C-alpha cells in the first residue's frame, strides 16, 4: 500500500492541473449556458435549438470531442494566426466546456419554464423591467435548479477531464494512461481515486451551495462558494506559483512504453544541461507529428516508416538510407521540422505469433500466414488497422483473416498469450517478444517499410543551438537490445521500473 500512497502524493501537479482545467471548463460552460438560457426563456425557437445542440454534443464520445478540437483549432489558425495552440489546455477547455453545457442549460431552461406564472405576472404587475425581473425574481428562484445542473456538469467534467491527457493536457488522466500502458495498476488506481475523490469533493461543495440557495441560507452558499474559490486559487498557485514556464522544452510522446521512456531520457539529458522540461504524453501518431510541426511540442521521437507512409503518403519501399534521406528533405521542405538523426534502433511493425503456433502451423513468413489466415484472428493496436502499412501488407500478401480485433498495445500481448488473438501486429523493439518467446514472421516481399527511430525537432526548436547541442549525443546511441531491455523493464508483470528509472538505466547503458 506504500506504493499507492507514493503514487497518490506524487499526483499534486496533475491534481492542480486537473482542478484548473475542470474549473475553467465549468466556468466557461456557465458563462455560455446562462445567457443562452435567458435568451431561450424569451424565445421558444432558441430554447429548442440550443437544447438540441447541447444534446447532440453530449452524444459525441468525450474522447472524440477532445480529439476533434485538434483539426478544428488547426484550421482556425488561418483566422487567429499561428500562435493559436492546437493541443493542451485550449482544446481540452473548449471540448469540456461544450460537454458541461447541456446539464447547466437544461436545468436553467427547465427552471425558467417552471416558474410560477402567478409570480411572473406579479413581477410584471409591480412594474419590474426585464433586468429587474431577471435579477430579483427569475435568478433567485431558478438558482437552486441551475446549481443542480452545475453540480452534474462538474461531476461529468472532472471525469471527462482525465481524457485530456490524450491531447497533451496534463490531468489526472496522466497516471491512468501511463499505468494502462505498462499494466501498472497502482498508477491507474491512484489516478482513478484522485479524480473520483475530486469529483466527490466538488459534488459535496456544490451540493452545499445548492442547498444554501434552496433553503435561502446565505451563509451556506457563500461558505460553499468561498471554499470552491479557495480550492481553485490554491490549484492556480500550485500550478503557476513557481515562476513562468515559457522557456520549458516540451517533449512529446506517443502512447506506448518506448515513447514514454525515450521522452524521459531526452528530458533527463536536457535537464542535465540546465533546460526546464515538460512532457506531453500519450499523443496519437498523427497528432504528435502535427503538434511538433506546429510547435506545440518541441521534440519527440518518430519512426521513418510511420512518416513515410502516414505523413508523406508514399507507397513504395526504398532501401533504408534512401528513405531516411528523403524524409529529412521532405520534413525540411514541408513542415520546417528538423530530423536530427537516427537513434540507432528500429521499431518495426511485424506479425508476431507464439512459437508454439509457428511450429504447429509451420509458419515462417507472412506468405505462410496468408494460407491459414482465414482461420485466424489478428490483433492490432487501435491505430494499426487504419494505417497504410497494414493495407500495404494486407494487399501484398492477400491477407484475409477470420476476424480482426483492436487492443491497447499492452493488452495485445496478453491477448496473444490467452488465445484471443492468433497473430498480432507487434513492435520489433518490444521486450515482450523475447520474454514471451514470440516469433516474428519474415516479410519476403518487403511490404513493411523500415521503422528507424528518429529524433524530430519543431521548426523553432531546431533554431535553438543549445538545445540541438544537448540532444545530439542521443543520436546513434541506442541499439535495439538496449531498447528492448528498457521496454521490458517497464512492461513486465513483476518488479516494474518507472519510466524515469528505465530511462536512467537506458542512458547509462547507452553511455550518455
Amino acid at each position, binding site marked *: 500500500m506504500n506504493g499507492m500512497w507514493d503514487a497518490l502524493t506524487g499526483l499534486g501537479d496533475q491534481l492542480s492541473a486537473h482542478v484548473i482545467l475542470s474549473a475553467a471548463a465549468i466556468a466557461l460552460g456557465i458563462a455560455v449556458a446562462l445567457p443562452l438560457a435567458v435568451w431561450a426563456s424569451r424565445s421558444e425557437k432558441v430554447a429548442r435549438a440550443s437544447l438540441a445542440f447541447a444534446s447532440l454534443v453530449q452524444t459525441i464520445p468525450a474522447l472524440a470531442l477532445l480529439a476533434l478540437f485538434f483539426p478544428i483549432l488547426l484550421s482556425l489558425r488561418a483566422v487567429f494566426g499561428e500562435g493559436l495552440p492546437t493541443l493542451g489546455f485550449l482544446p481540452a477547455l473548449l471540448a469540456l466546456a461544450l460537454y458541461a453545457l447541456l446539464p447547466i442549460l437544461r436545468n436553467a431552461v427547465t427552471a425558467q419554464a417552471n416558474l*410560477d*406564472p*402567478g*409570480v411572473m405576472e*406579479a413581477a410584471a*404587475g*409591480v*412594474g*419590474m*423591467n426585464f433586468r429587474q425581473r431577471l435579477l430579483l425574481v427569475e435568478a433567485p428562484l431558478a438558482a437552486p435548479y441551475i446549481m443542480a445542473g452545475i453540480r452534474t456538469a462538474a461531476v461529468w467534467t472532472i471525469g471527462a477531464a482525465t481524457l485530456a491527457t490524450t491531447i497533451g493536457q496534463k490531468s489526472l488522466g496522466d497516471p491512468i494512461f501511463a499505468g494502462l500502458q505498462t499494466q501498472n495498476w497502482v498508477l491507474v488506481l491512484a489516478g482513478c481515486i484522485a479524480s473520483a475523490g475530486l469529483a466527490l469533493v466538488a459534488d459535496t461543495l456544490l451540493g452545499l451551495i445548492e442547498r444554501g440557495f434552496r433553503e435561502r441560507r446565505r451563509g451556506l452558499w457563500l461558505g460553499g462558494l468561498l471554499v470552491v474559490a479557495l480550492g481553485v486559487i490554491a490549484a492556480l498557485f500550485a500550478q503557476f506559483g513557481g515562476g513562468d514556464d515559457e522557456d520549458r522544452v516540451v517533449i512529446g510522446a506517443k502512447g506506448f512504453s518506448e515513447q514514454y521512456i525515450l521522452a524521459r531520457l531526452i528530458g533527463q539529458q536536457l535537464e542535465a544541461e540546465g533546460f526546464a522540461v515538460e512532457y506531453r504524453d500519450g499523443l496519437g501518431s498523427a497528432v504528435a507529428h502535427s503538434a511538433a510541426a506546429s510547435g506545440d511540442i518541441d521534440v519527440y521521437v518518430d519512426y521513418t516508416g510511420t512518416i513515410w507512409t502516414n505523413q508523406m503518403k508514399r507507397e513504395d519501399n526504398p532501401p533504408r538510407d534512401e528513405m531516411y534521406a528523403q524524409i529529412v528533405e521532405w520534413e525540411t521542405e514541408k513542415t520546417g521540422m528538423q530530423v536530427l538523426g537516427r537513434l540507432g534502433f528500429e521499431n518495426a511493425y511485424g506479425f508476431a505469433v507464439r512459437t508454439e503456433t509457428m511450429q504447429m502451423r509451420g509458419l515462417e513468413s507472412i506468405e505462410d500466414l496468408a494460407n491459414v489466415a482465414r482461420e485466424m484472428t489478428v490483433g492490432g493496436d487501435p491505430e494499426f488497422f487504419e494505417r497504410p502499412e497494414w493495407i500495404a501488407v494486407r494487399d501484398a500478401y492477400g491477407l484475409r483473416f477470420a476476424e480482426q480485433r483492436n487492443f491497447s498495445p499492452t493488452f495485445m500481448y496478453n491477448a496473444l498469450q490467452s488465445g484471443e488473438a492468433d497473430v498480432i501486429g507487434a513492435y520489433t523493439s518490444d521486450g515482450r517478444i523475447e520474454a514471451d518467446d514470440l516469433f516474428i514472421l519474415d516479410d519476403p516481399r518487403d511490404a513493411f517499410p523500415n521503422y528507424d527511430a528518429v529524433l524530430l525537432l519543431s521548426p523553432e526548436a531546431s533554431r535553438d543551438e543549445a538545445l540541438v547541442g544537448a540532444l545530439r549525443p542521443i543520436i546513434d546511441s541506442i541499439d535495439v537490445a538496449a531498447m528492448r531491455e528498457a521496454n521490458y523493464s517497464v512492461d513486465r508483470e513483476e518488479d516494474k521500473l518507472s519510466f524515469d528509472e528505465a530511462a536512467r538505466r537506458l542512458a547509462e547503458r547507452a553511455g550518455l
Partner: protein
Amino acid sequence: MPEPVLTFSGVSKAYGPTRAIDALDLAIEAGSFVALVGASGSGKSTLLKTVNRLVEPTTGSVTFDGDDVAGLPLAGLRRRIGYVFQSIGLFPHMSVAENIAIGPRLAGERLPEDRIGKLLEWVELDREMVDRMPDELSGGQRQRVGVARALAAEPQLLLMDEPFGALDPVTRDALGERVRKLHEELGLTTVMVTHDMAEALLLADRVLVMDAGRIVADETPQSLVAGAGGEIAQALVAVPRHQAERLAELSA
C-alpha cells in the same frame, strides 16, 4: 359630474379570429368602485389588463389620468396602479415585508418600517408577520399581503382581477369588506373583475356586465336588483337572488 380618471375609446383586442374585446367605449370616474362581471371568456379580465398594459389593445386607446397609457413608460405606469389578482403571486423568496416594499424598491425608495406596519394593519394582519415567508401563510393571509403590496406605493387606481376567487367564503367576505373600506378611506378608484354577481352587487357602486367583448349592462347595484340591465345581467342577478330566497324559505 366628476372627471373620468380612466377612459377606454374604441378598444378592441383580437386573438387571431376571436375578439376578446370588441370596440369598447367606457369612462370610469375618479373615486368609483366598478365591478366588471361576466362569464368566463366575456373579456372582462382582458379589458382590465389593458389598463396596466399586461395586455396591449389591437386598436383603440386607454387613457389614465389624461394620458394615453400606450405612451407612458411601462414600469412607471404600473407603479402608479395597484394590481391584485387571483393567483396572488407573492415572491416566494421574499419575506412579507420585502414583498410589500417591492414597488417602492424598484423606484429606488426604501419603504419605512412604520409604513409596512400600517399597510399590514390596513389589511388586518399582525405587525409581527413582517418577517414571515409566503409559504408560512394561509391563503387568506397571502391575499391580504397581496393587497398591502398593491397599496404600498400609494396608487390612485386599484385593479383587482378575481381577487378573492381562491379564498374560502368567510375570508372572502371579510377581505372584500376590508377592501371596500380601504377604497373609501384612501379615496381610490377601484376596478374589480369578478364572475360572482353577489360580490359585485355588495361591494361596487357601479356594475358593468360584459358578454362577448362588449358591455351589455351598466347599472348601479340597486337598479340591477330592481330588474334593470337586460337579459344577460338579470340571468347573473338571478343566481344570488334565488339563493337568498331559498335561505329565506329555510328560516321561515
